[in-house]
């Protein structure tokens, strides 16, 4: 089955990203396909490479990046939600005259159309939120 995943909460404050990560990993291990993982609302905060969680805790951004790399996942951060919350790739940082970018490896920034398209293309869309 092809699954689309939506992550609506940031890391650590809510469990949503952890649960989405474990669900995605388990689905891949069972042989399902992941159409896309779309990060919306505070979920975009999963895509900053500047988080430094304590060493004895999980690093959600790194887990997503590694899972993405291993399985060739399309990890998409919503551009409008990301800009509000200070998540920028190099192009967006330049375009808005900011002195730094922080998008994590394996993530890309794109529009909400990618969320709708994932809903149309996948067999199931699974939302993880508060």
């Amino acid at each position, binding site marked *: 089955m092809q699954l689309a995943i939506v992550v609506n909460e940031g890391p650590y404050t809510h469990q949503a990203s952890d649960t989405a990560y474990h669900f995605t990993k388990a689905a891949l291990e069972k042989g399902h396909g992941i159409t896309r993982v779309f990060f*919306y609302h505070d979920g975009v905060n999963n895509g900053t490479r500047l988080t430094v969680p304590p060493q004895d805790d999980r690093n959600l951004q790194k887990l997503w990046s590694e899972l993405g790399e291993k399985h060739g996942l399309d990890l998409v951060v919503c551009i*409008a939600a990301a800009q509000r919350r200070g998540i920028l790739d190099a192009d967006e940082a330049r375009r808005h005259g900011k002195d730094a970018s922080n998008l994590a490896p394996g993530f890309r920034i794109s529009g909400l*159309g990618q*969320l709708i398209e994932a*809903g*149309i293309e996948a067999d199931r869309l699974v*939302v993880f939120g508060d």
Partner: protein
Amino acid sequence: MAQKKKFLYVNRKAPYGTIYALEALEVVLIGAAFEQDVSLAFLDDGVFQLMAGQDTAAASMKNFSRTFKALGDYDVRKFYVERESLAERGLTVEDLMPITYEDEAEDYAEKPSIIPVSRAEMAALIAQQDVVLSF
């Protein structure tokens, strides 16, 4: 593109205390361009999103309630509002904004977009969908 899918956007939170309602509306607006079979559901505190006479000036928030009235022009014309959620908050359908669409099949007659439903009907509606996005 294949057959249209049934998309339901479930709005469960009050409009201004958190950003969920505003960002949900942004998804609905973008989604309208994909010509799917779209419905909106309003339940729990989400019914407050449709209250008439919203004034956000004192809270210095953007009042986006007018956008709901424009959705009819984007073929978003099914606003299912849960009666129990209204009643639990001391509200009736009369407390909500009038939201209408023009029915091209009937010489563009203005028709109400708001469809009050019971909790059981809402559950059945959700069960019929292909894609449910909950906010």
